[in-house]
């Protein structure tokens, strides 16, 4: 009763206060719940998907917490786009189950769609229409109309600093502004979960930062859950949790920091003119495996105790001073995590530019 009263009152408030009110309702409701179990934003259980013979996802399971920024990171062809399409209800589920905010994707399609805001990689705006017209159509698709819709549009345009461009045709806007209109459009019906497919692909660095500033503030102030796919390692660093996908399987999951920590304390890179020889010597003398990337040897496979990290550096430089051209130690990057989990180098294959 309390919840529905508050929800009713919230209808006449501006956008951000509405979200706040909705959150309040949500929290009140939760706190009255005896079995305090927050519903995850997304639960994926044993999902497999195949296109004909080719398997794109293999028995994939994952849980995304409310209010997190969750990244699905993987090389192209890793299965993240398939997962995105399944979550966005663009592909039918084959095996397994997905629930979004407690709603089952199979049986409660309309509810799930109402909870979802989707930002596509390819623009979904009608370029022949103005910003305002695009948002009006979007509102109508979600059953919003009249004064409610007008207020929502106004609120969202202000939130994303687009108010002065509302009468402009979308085709006259820059790429960055168009992406922001996409965001305004996806948020119009106040989704609980925002799905983004490769959000910064095709955007230049400045615009990318601007987009991320907006995404962060939405996440922080409105508690919106963000779930995004990306093949860019630096974009994955913006997330507070990531799932690493490779060949349709989940190979690692955790916060970027945690994953990097788990991958070993240090990555040691050695430049040498005789990589194979040196690798062999290191294996014999120090019982350490290394991988080779051109003229660089990378030692990271075996976890090196934190305390002994400089000891190993010292050890290496003393033992192989003649073979080593240069040596460096750094904390592992997500690239190293991927290499360690798959045994292959991360290929930054940007197909769309």
């Amino acid at each position, binding site marked *: 009763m309390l*919840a*529905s009263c508050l*929800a009713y009152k919230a209808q006449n408030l501006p956008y951000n206060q509405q979200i706040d009110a909705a959150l309040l309702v949500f929290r009140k*409701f939760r706190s009255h719940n005896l079995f305090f179990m927050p519903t995850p934003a997304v639960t994926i259980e044993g999902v497999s998907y195949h296109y004909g013979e080719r398997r794109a996802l293999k028995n994939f399971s994952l849980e995304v917490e409310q209010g997190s920024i969750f990244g699905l990171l993987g090389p192209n062809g890793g299965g993240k786009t398939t997962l995105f399409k399944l979550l*966005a*209800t*663009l592909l*039918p*589920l084959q095996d397994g189950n997905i629930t979004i905010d407690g709603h089952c*994707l*199979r049986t409660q*399609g*309309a*509810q*799930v*769609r*109402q909870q*979802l805001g*989707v930002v*596509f990689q*390819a*623009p*979904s*705006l*009608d370029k*022949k*229409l103005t910003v305002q*017209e695009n948002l*009006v*159509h*979007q509102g*109508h*698709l*979600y*059953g919003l*109309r009249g004064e409610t819709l007008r207020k929502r549009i106004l609120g969202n345009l202000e939130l994303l600093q687009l108010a002065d461009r509302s009468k402009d045709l979308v085709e006259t806007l820059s790429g960055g502004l168009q992406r922001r209109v996409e965001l305004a*459009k996806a948020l119009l019906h106040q989704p609980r979960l925002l799905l983004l497919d490769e959000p910064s692909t095709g955007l230049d660095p400045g615009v990318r930062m601007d987009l991320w500033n907006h995404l962060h503030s939405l996440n922080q102030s409105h508690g919106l859950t963000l779930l995004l796919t990306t093949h860019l390692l630096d974009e994955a660093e913006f997330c507070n949790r990531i799932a690493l996908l490779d060949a349709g399987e989940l190979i690692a999951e955790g916060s970027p920091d945690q994953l990097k920590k788990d991958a070993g304390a240090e990555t040691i890179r050695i430049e040498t003119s005789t990589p194979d020889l040196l690798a062999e010597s290191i294996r014999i003398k120090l019982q350490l495996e290394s991988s080779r990337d051109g003229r660089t040897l990378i030692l990271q496979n075996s976890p090196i105790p934190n305390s002994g990290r400089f000891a190993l550096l010292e050890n290496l430089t003393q033992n192989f001073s003649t073979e080593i051209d240069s040596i460096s130690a750094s904390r592992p990057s997500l690239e190293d995590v991927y290499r360690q989990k798959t045994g292959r180098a991360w290929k930054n294959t940007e197909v769309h530019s």
Partner: protein
Amino acid sequence: MSRPVISHFWLPMITLWKREVVRFLRQKNRVIGALATPILFWALIGSGMGTAFRPPSLPVDQDYLEYFYPGTMLMIVLFTAIFSTISIIEDRREGFLQGVLVAPVSPFSIVLGKILGGTTLAVGQSLLFYLLAPLVGLHFSFEGVFLVTVTLVVLSVALTGLGYVIAWPMQSVQGFHAIMNLFLLPLWLLSGALFALETAKGWIQWIMFMNPLTYGLRALRQAFDPGPSSPFTWDSPWVVGNLVMLVAGMILVAMAASMTQRTFRT
């Protein structure tokens, strides 16, 4: 706690319908392409063929430009239907339609929005062409305008539905062009637009006999020139033609809805 969410129907349908029309009016080349091409065809083919050959079935007082006039109008409807549905292909993979497909919208309202949009454009453009009717000695009357408009609406729904059904499963616009040349244009050619069924060769006559558009065009012809019999009898070409096209249209709309539904099922 909250009311159950159901897929929205009327509002999305109307908004998609409106979008189709607004979008069209903002693209001048589409307006010209869909209207000027058939008029050019009509003037060139109509005048050229009219003197080169004369279908034996043509009444003595009718010139070929006049004979070809309803066929041209059918072509306008066909072209507009094609152009308004061809966008489905691109829009579904990247474009406006992606956003529609993830919204809680009834698939039927997507189909109807698109088809009503296409129909509005096709009827609007054909009615513009109708203004040229006095040039070939066809006169406006209240009854005539009514008969023509009803027929145009029925034809447009069916042809936009056909365009939708063809475009929906297509992966590329090129594929649609192939279908247009191999299927849609012959469909029009063999509807009696250029030559009458009675004078055609045996096998062509059979195809024309099976072609629903033949009956649609007959209805349109009678709407322009009722002839000796009244169009308001059960067996008049106007009633039969409209019924045939109405049934075809309903089947196509149902097919379109089921195709769209299939994409939706989760």
